[in-house]
């Protein structure tokens, strides 16, 4: 049909199918700010456009419906202020506020948020927080926890009203020791939309400096993200935004059975469908055993996956690939593939996986074992760690506490689905543009699968719309790669939201038994954990995730007195296969699974001993200067080496956190636990203490390359993978600080396996620490060359200066004589004038230690004791992540992490029926928190100085995932006496404890 659209005040005459969605039309026209979240019911809102000034989802609208209306997109809102000779009005105030406040992380949902904010402010110049949250509720964000976007909108509205707003970066606060002596006002859940009323336009987080340090120019400051300006404009920065001539669209046929063998597969009709370019089955591609887990060589796990095989091991397993001229044709072709399955008995219960007679999921002869994997027993990995003498420790205990806990399979729920594009370049090298956290692992691991040498593959990682571990997989590149090889044409494969649920790699569910020996004075004498981990159909991250469950959570409580020096700890784990969607990496990497049982168990013990739960934990927790107990016993399948932990700010975290949440006024205050006028409600408060790791010692390596340009700016090339975390920004800040230039003189590029140095990728909380140290080393080399060149130039002017006496700052080299050379002078001299050289530095870094960050997390909840419904009112996290390189991006990590962990605590789980079919296949059934239902969140940074990092930093990205669930669980216990063993804390679980299993508690 022929229609005319008015987009951003411009007429577009179009001829299109009557059933075409507005989203597809707009993206085809090049409006790449409109993002595809892969959903079909408008759940995510990434595809928002303004229709006559009102935000609507373009994915749930036919294009024809928009005729006669005014469509507006972010493309028309604002632009970079400087386009050479053409000056623009710059970014819109709302866009600028999003950039400044750190409201942009991955940026995938940012254009949508900016549009809903514009619609709101255009209609209401002075929106309150509820109204802002209501507007933003249409756009799901998995990165930010919504706090900073709310602040951005409130800030923009204030600016547009002509009001003064507080500065973003207040460096005076950085070195100021804040003692929260005053008890903060408890505003409780003061607004019906939740979120509290504490949200202010001031975004700099609370910061308590433990180890004083010198002030710095860039590090420690709230610099805007280096990619924020392009993301806020909705520039085509993501994989699906790349355009290619002759592009084919890929679709995948997935298994409808949990366990089956393909007896016969007929693709004749599918191949005959006009517009189909290639159809591939297991009969067409090489059979190569590999692992989709993107990890360093050698892969610490079994090689048990085949790009296409003739055995299906879960509902969602890959049966066939199709490439066609349009997605619709590809979809139609899938329906024409005839598959004759032999349905096999399936295994869904991990506790029965190793039973005699259980269905064997991996019976293939070409399965490649790793360490103790044993496919004949459905065992993907086995861990047996004994530290000290655990049995002796139990004998020395006055009391033994044993319990069993369970954590569910949960999804990372990144808003940008997995997407990959591949094509042959002019040198017949395969180029793969992919939304990955691990571009170098992709190149290495996909090469044999595609039958290509590594050197004939180039992997490009553009911006990523969130990953959270889910994109630490080599899971989609085979689809596009094989189809490009088969068709000779560029191919794009973009997963739908349903595919993300049925066929991606969510978090390992676990059943965990824990046994603890304690003396009557509260000293832990021995601690034992057995973890049954369900890796699903394939063993990706099987060993290492389970290993981390013990390595981090069981390391925190070593015991007191003599046990502190020689702790008794046992961690055993069996990681088993089941016929369910494979598990994988998810932010926290096994540690959230571990801290649910460990911390809930500590709470139970403290209460049984009638000890203060905080004092009990701190009595037994690690102290600075002690050896990480697991460092002598286990290291992700490699040789362990002892590590001393030098910085532990846990006690200070507890002190700050308990003051922020008002612990002393609420805990054991019976009156506070009641809600006036609502007899069915009880309030509760809980705490959890956690630790994580910072990279993998002796393994993780990152590289960096820096070169100086004619104008004194620098290109920083890193293989590190910014998946929205802001790592490009903090790496640039460290380079800028070392070189003495402003941040915008550092041009960061990440990542391209042809051009950037190797980096293991974005996982294990390693980028700031490992890649950052590489950047600093490279920058120091460059700085040294600048000083040498400057000394030479000073000498030519008769000024005799030692290179070591030259100071670099503000883009200049200062001699002690106050003589100055600009970096531009130095660059032009080095590149064009005398003894020409390219001033550059390349470096890499690997660490022998993995200094853990520590945190105290607090939660306040309200429990409906009649229905069991839990409302989380408040979350506070005080965290020791060493020196904070960028307080705004770091606090964004904490807030976003807490929001994800909140879902883990109360709402998120993936449930399979007795046929292995998943219950949750979209964001309606798999509910992630919206902006208008978030609890109040507070972050406090407790700054220690980690001596093994050039700027004293430790990790920040994963630790917020660890303690929310147990803190919420402990708060539920405090509220109504229910000691929950299994998360999420869905209403019926609480109700059962109150009414069915333990009815006496209701009183």
């Amino acid at each position, binding site marked *: 049909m022929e229609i005319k659209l008015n987009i951003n005040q411009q007429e577009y005459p179009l001829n299109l199918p009557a059933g075409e969605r507005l989203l597809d039309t707009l993206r085809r026209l090049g409006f790449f700010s409109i993002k595809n979240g892969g959903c079909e019911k408008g759940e995510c809102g990434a595809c928002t456009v303004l229709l006559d000034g009102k935000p609507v989802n373009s994915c749930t609208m036919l294009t024809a419906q928009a005729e006669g209306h005014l469509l507006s997109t972010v493309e028309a809102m604002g632009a970079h202020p400087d386009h050479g000779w053409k000056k623009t009005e710059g970014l819109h105030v709302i866009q600028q506020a999003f950039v400044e406040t750190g409201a942009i992380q991955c940026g995938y949902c940012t254009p949508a948020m900016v549009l809903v904010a514009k619609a709101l402010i255009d209609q209401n110049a002075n929106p309150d927080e509820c109204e802002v949250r209501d507007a933003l509720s249409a756009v799901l964000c998995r990165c930010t926890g919504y706090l900073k976007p709310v602040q951005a909108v409130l800030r923009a509205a204030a600016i547009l009203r002509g009001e003064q707003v507080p500065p973003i970066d207040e460096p005076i606060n950085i070195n100021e020791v804040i003692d929260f002596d005053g008890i903060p006002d408890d505003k409780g859940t003061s607004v019906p939309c939740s979120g509290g009323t504490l949200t202010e336009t001031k975004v700099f987080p609370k910061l308590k400096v433990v180890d004083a340090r010198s002030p710095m120019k860039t590090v420690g400051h709230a610099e805007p993200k280096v990619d924020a300006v392009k993301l806020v404009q909705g520039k085509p920065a993501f994989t699906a935004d790349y355009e290619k001539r002759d592009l084919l669209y890929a679709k995948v046929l997935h298994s409808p059975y949990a366990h089956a063998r393909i007896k016969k597969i007929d693709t004749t009709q599918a191949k005959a469908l006009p517009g189909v370019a290639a159809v591939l089955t297991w009969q067409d591609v090489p059979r190569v055993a590999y692992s989709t887990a993107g990890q360093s060589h050698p892969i610490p796990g079994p090689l048990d996956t085949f790009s296409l095989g003739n055995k299906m091991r879960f509902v969602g397993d890959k049966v066939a690939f199709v490439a066609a001229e349009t997605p619709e044709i590809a979809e139609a072709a899938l329906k024409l593939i005839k598959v004759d399955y032999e349905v096999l008995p399936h295994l869904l219960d991990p506790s029965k996986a190793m039973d005699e007679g259980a269905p064997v999921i991996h019976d293939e002869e070409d399965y490649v074992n790793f360490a103790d994997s044993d496919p004949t027993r459905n065992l993907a990995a086995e861990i047996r760690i004994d530290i000290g003498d655990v049995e002796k420790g139990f004998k020395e205990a006055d009391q033994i506490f044993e319990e069993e806990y369970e954590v569910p399979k949960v999804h990372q729920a990144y808003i940008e689905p997995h997407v990959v594009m591949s094509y042959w370049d002019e040198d017949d090298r395969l180029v793969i543009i992919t939304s990955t956290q691990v571009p170098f692992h992709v190149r290495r691991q996909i090469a044999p699968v595609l039958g290509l040498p590594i050197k004939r593959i180039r992997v490009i990682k553009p911006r990523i719309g969130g990953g959270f571990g889910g994109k630490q997989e080599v899971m989609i590149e085979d689809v596009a790669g094989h189809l490009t090889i088969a068709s000779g044409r560029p191919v794009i494969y973009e997963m739908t939201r349903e595919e993300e649920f049925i066929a991606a790699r969510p978090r390992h569910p676990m059943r965990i038994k824990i046994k603890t020996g304690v003396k009557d004075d509260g000293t832990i004498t021995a601690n034992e954990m057995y973890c049954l981990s369900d890796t699903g159909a394939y063993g990706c991250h099987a060993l290492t995730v389970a290993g981390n469950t013990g390595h981090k959570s069981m390391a925190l409580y070593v015991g007191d007195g003599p046990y502190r020096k020689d702790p008794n700890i046992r961690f055993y784990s069996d990681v088993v296969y089941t016929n369910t969607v494979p598990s994988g990496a998810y932010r926290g990497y096994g540690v959230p699974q571990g801290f649910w049982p460990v911390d809930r168990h500590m709470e139970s013990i403290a209460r049984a001993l009638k000890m203060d739960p905080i004092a009990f934990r701190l009595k037994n927790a690690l102290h600075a200067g002690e050896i990480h107990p697991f460092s002598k016993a286990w290291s992700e399948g490699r040789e362990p080496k002892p590590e001393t932990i030098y910085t532990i700010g846990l006690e200070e975290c507890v002190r700050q956190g308990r003051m922020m949440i008002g612990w002393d006024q609420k805990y054991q205050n019976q009156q506070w636990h009641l809600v006036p006028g609502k007899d069915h409600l009880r309030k509760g408060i809980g705490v959890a203490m956690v630790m994580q790791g910072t990279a993998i010692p002796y393994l993780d390596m990152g590289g960096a390359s820096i070169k100086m340009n004619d104008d004194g700016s620098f290109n920083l090339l890193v293989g590190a993978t910014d998946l929205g975390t802001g790592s490009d920004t903090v790496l640039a800040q460290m380079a800028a600080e070392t070189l003495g230039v402003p941040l915008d003189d550092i041009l960061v590029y990440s990542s391209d396996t042809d051009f950037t140095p190797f980096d293991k990728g974005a996982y294990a909380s390693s980028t700031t620490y490992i890649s950052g140290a590489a950047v600093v080393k490279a920058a120091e080399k460059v700085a040294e060359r600048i000083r040498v060149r400057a000394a030479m130039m000073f000498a030519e002017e008769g000024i005799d200066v030692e290179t070591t006496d030259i100071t670099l700052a503000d883009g200049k080299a200062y001699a002690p004589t106050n003589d100055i050379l600009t970096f531009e002078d130095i660059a032009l001299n080095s590149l064009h004038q005398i003894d020409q050289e390219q001033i550059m530095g390349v470096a890499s870094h690997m660490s022998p230690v993995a200094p853990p960050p520590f945190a105290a997390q607090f939660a306040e909840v309200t429990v409906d004791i009649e229905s069991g419904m839990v409302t989380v009112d408040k979350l506070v996290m005080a965290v020791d992540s060493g020196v904070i390189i960028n307080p705004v991006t770091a606090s964004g990590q904490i807030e976003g992490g807490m929001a994800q962990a909140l879902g883990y605590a109360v709402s998120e789980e993936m449930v399979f029926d007795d046929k292995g079919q998943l219950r949750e296949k979209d964001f309606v059934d798999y509910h992630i928190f919206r902006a208008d239902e978030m609890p109040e969140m507070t972050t406090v940074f407790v700054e220690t100085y980690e001596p093994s990092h050039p700027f004293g930093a430790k990790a920040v990205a994963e630790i917020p995932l660890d303690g929310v669930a147990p803190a919420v669980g402990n708060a539920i216990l405090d509220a109504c006496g229910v000691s929950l063993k299994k998360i999420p804390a869905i209403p*019926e679980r609480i109700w059962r404890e109150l009414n069915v299993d333990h009815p006496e508690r209701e009183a």
Partner: protein
Amino acid sequence: MIKDYFRPKSIEEAVGLLQDPQKKRTPIGGGTTVSRHQDGLSGVVDLQNAGLDFILATGQYIQVGAATRLETVLSYPEIDLEMKRAIKIEANQNIRNAATLGGWLISSDGRSILSTLLLAMDTIMSWEPGTQKIHFGDWLPLRSDVSPGVLLHELAWLKGLNVAFEYVARSPKDQPVLIAAVAQWGSGRTRVALGGFGDAPIIALDGPDDNGVDLASRDAYIAAEDAWATALYRRDVAAKLAMRCLNRINAIKGNEV
């Protein structure tokens, strides 16, 4: 696959397009459902210009055109606050700006708070051609099999009802696993609707007074079991939620006195 798109300018024109027996066409309000369920459809009839976007609050009834956007309903002053709360919980702003009340109810399932609330309020549907009226509660269980026309024209409910709903979900804005909605007339007539389960909400009680609200609610959900909650849970908590609604209504009435 949708081949034809129509945008009629009147109800009569819309009805004519939808009555063509040779074509399988469907009306669309916001399009939030149709855009993803195109199989077997030959055409769509977009109602945005058909004159079905209205709210009338004259007389005893609130009458809302079937193609009225949820956001319009939300912002209309005479709409009950409890209904506004239901809309806000159920649909985010983008959805509210596109989805129409008629389309939303027709495509809703048992987990819709709005549908449950309107059922409790004994909402009347008006269909074209012929302005045929049917109670929402009579239409819901059988849906299109009993639709007295091809086009939903209007929804109407009595003004001044005392209404309240309570729900249980995993989070405040999650899809509920249990909803209880109570409407009470000035005469004392009390209607209790339950939702959170199945294809549609159901009526647990429609009586001259509020006697037996809890028992009726418990009985109505005695077998309401699915993957999201057990019947044991639903029946116990449904009774409690219904009583809570009633208590809220009584409190409101007490304040009015």
